[in-house]
């Protein structure tokens, strides 16, 4: 066995262990150590990704001395390795982009606790990506939830604590349903390992004795994960949580945490139940409807918002609607589009959050639109980055958002008329709505501020220069490059996703 094959295992255990190690460190060491670990795991994932592209075959890795149905297992393929690499990169950029805010907003003695949360969040995301066992997935979903809650309430204002409470209530509803679904699934198949469950489900489905429990359990798992990833009617905690927590938390939460659950859901579709049974069971249609609702309603709410951070948060609701709509199309093409949208949304949303905080800093810390007038001149780098992010969200060619919208449209065209028509209409409406609120913001950023406003702000907000915040600008640059890369070299990425999905089965 080649040494590279250990890397998924190493990266999960390394981040778990470094979480424990961080508990005795002080602020500075914790930050350094966390950066080092993140970089190391990024490098490992990159090496694994290249290796997997060469080998082109997934492999399983025993966690312990006992082979498949008895012991735990993790599994790595092209898609998993790429996802891990991508998640690590996004996490690294958003942490570095918001570094100064973490130092300023988090209590001095509690900074190392913040890095514990980050480490354990990373390990749980990696475990969700790589795991081949449903119960392990449940345990790490819980770690993910609790650490996300920690990230939300780290600033300890009344708003964030309230948002964290709402989040925990919603998340525990979701995990209750998820656990019950897994229990019923265990009851009718007798396995917890994904590949073994798939075999016995095929057998059970052919026999037809337990079809009703099977469908019900799949439904519960799907609904549980949808609640956890803030699909439209369950999004009430989201705007407060993203709008008032520290900027790195908001970026990580919106671009990674909910995506981890969605990736697990895709994994369950392909590796546990089998895509044909899922499509047969009509559960995808429910997801489709809710996804369409989310696309429209999220954008409408975003237009009504007067706070830039909350506006970006509501835009997340709309984008999660897109992803679920793609899952709901019920074709492999739709899933490919959804996975591409996970990537594109993650890179764009973190860019928007980080750029947005630069703009609000240049406007005296106010997040209101009136105060943001002309801030694009005061902090030019953040202004340009925000404009790029907005263009990507709206779907202008060259940027990643355009490709994902095109993929969604392609997937819809291949579908039956009943799904194609609503998809196309909603895509069009949602794009127009997106354009309205993002372009409104961009225009405001580049409207010269009136003299009155300029006078009041002159004292607090001097123009932000690049020399003072090198790390912030570097992170912005990296995210912009990632975004453009996704937009320009989309074909190899789509090929990679398709081949990864075919390895999933």
């Amino acid at each position, binding site marked *: 066995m080649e040494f590279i094959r250990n890397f998924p295992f190493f990266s999960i255990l390394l981040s778990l*262990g470094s979480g424990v190690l961080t508990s*005795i460190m002080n602020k500075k060491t914790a930050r350094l150590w966390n950066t080092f670990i993140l970089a190391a795991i990024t490098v490992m994932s990159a090496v694994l990704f290249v290796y997997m592209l060469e080998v082109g075959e997934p492999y399983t890795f025993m*966690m*312990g*001395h006992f082979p498949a149905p008895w012991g*735990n297992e993790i599994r790595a393929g092209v898609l998993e390795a790429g996802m891990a690499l991508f998640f690590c990169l996004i996490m690294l950029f958003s942490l570095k982009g918001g570094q100064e805010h973490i130092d300023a907003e988090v209590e*001095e003695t509690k900074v190392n606790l913040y890095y514990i949360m980050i480490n354990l969040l990373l390990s749980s995301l990696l475990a969700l990506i790589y795991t081949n*066992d449903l119960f392990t997935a449940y345990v790490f979903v819980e770690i993910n939830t*609790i650490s996300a809650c920690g990230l939300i309430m780290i600033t300890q204002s009344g708003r964030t604590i309230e948002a964290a409470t709402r989040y925990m209530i919603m998340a525990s509803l979701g995990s209750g349903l998820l656990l019950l679904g897994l229990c019923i699934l265990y009851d*009718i198949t007798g396995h917890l390992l994904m590949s073994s469950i798939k075999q016995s489900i095929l057998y059970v489905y052919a026999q037809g004795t337990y079809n009703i429990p099977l469908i019900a359990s799949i439904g519960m798992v799907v609904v549980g994960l949808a609640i956890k990833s803030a699909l439209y009617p369950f999004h009430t905690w989201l705007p407060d949580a993203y709008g008032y927590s520290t900027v790195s938390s908001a970026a990580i939460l919106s671009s990674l945490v909910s995506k981890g659950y969605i990736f697990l859901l895709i994994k369950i579709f392909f590796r546990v139940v089998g895509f044909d049974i899922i499509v047969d069971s009509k559960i995808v249609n429910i997801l489709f409807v809710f996804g369409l609702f989310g696309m429209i309603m999220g954008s409408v709410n975003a237009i009504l918002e007067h706070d830039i951070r909350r506006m970006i948060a509501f835009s997340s609701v709309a984008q999660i609607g897109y992803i679920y709509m793609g899952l709901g199309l019920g074709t492999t093409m739709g899933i490919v589009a959804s996975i591409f949208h996970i990537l594109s949304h993650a890179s764009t949303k973190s860019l928007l959050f980080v750029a947005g905080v630069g703009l609000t800093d240049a406007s005296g810390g106010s997040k209101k639109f009136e105060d943001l007038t002309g801030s694009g001149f005061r902090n030019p780098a953040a202004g340009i980055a925000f404009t790029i992010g907005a263009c990507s969200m709206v779907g202008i060619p060259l940027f990643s958002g355009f490709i994902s919208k095109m993929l969604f449209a392609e997937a819809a065209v291949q579908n039956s008329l009943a799904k194609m028509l609503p998809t196309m209409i909603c895509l069009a409406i949602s794009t127009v709505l997106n354009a309205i609120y993002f372009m409104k913001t961009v225009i405001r950023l580049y409207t010269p501020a009136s003299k009155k406003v300029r006078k009041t702000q002159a004292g607090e907000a001097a123009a932000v220069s690049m020399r003072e915040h090198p790390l912030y600008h570097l992170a912005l640059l990296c995210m912009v490059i990632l975004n453009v890369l996704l937009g320009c070299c989309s074909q190899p990425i789509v090929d990679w996703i398709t081949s990864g999905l075919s390895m999933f089965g």
Partner: protein
Amino acid sequence: MSRLLSEEEYRKTKAFKIRRWYRGEKDPYLGKVEMKPQKPFTEDIKTQKQRIHDEAILRRNIYDIEHNKKLQIFSKFYKVVSIVFVFTLIAILLYVVSYLPPVGNAANPDNNEVASKYIEDGMKDTGAVNIVTGMILDYRAFDTLGESNVLFIATCTVLILLRVDNRSKKKEEEENDRLYEPKNDIILQKVAFFLVPMIIIFGIYVILNGHLSPGGGFSGGAIIGSGLILYVNAFGFKKIERFFTQKTYKWICFVALLFYCLAKTYSFYCGAHHLETGIPLGTPGDILSSGLILPLNICVGMVVACTMYAFYAMFRKGGF
């Protein structure tokens, strides 16, 4: 009733005293135990008015029917929808249950080769007599590693929320804590004096016999933790701080969890590469047997005991 003793001598005996006490002729504590009459609760009229006024404003703001009509309609709608939803959920679940395989039947799909392998080879493979312990700490150890990290991260979030680092605030919290906890309760202290050692010894027994009898690291740790909580309640934080402070807690947790992670990394690595771990399994049934399970149980037990106590202390006064 004839008396052997004269009246005067009889008055000196204990029997007389007991009789008198029994009949309620004299209260033995009268004049010996000081009982201060409780200060009657009086409230200044001004503060009373102020409070009522404040409350009225609060109520008006919250239950402002004119302004909150939308909210009220929404809450009614929400109630109806959720009641309907819950009843549908229960109905669906009962419907599902009626199709599930019957309970207690040995031919159910979940009693398959996985369970039978655990039972048949469990003792040979892991060395643990208690198959459940062997399963969670050896066959499915990755889950359990995740589980102890769930506990760890929950403690971290509680620390974020409730730990008080500011010195003046700490003092304030301590004073408040003193106000609302009874101090030096003789009955409680006497009972705790006997009970605490027994609870802790029982907890240690449960941990050490985790691979032989029901229980294990988690339940034993919780028992020890409750023993510590009883101790604090009886004797106060001052006494426990002589041997258990936040620093001890931090180091115990750190060492135990790190050992856990390292041991499991080693055993996973060996397992995946089909190497021998070199840890003897011993004869099943002995205390010193079953390889890594005993040390892991001890680690989990220590972490859980400290964590439970830490939860309690954090909730009460934000530090210990």
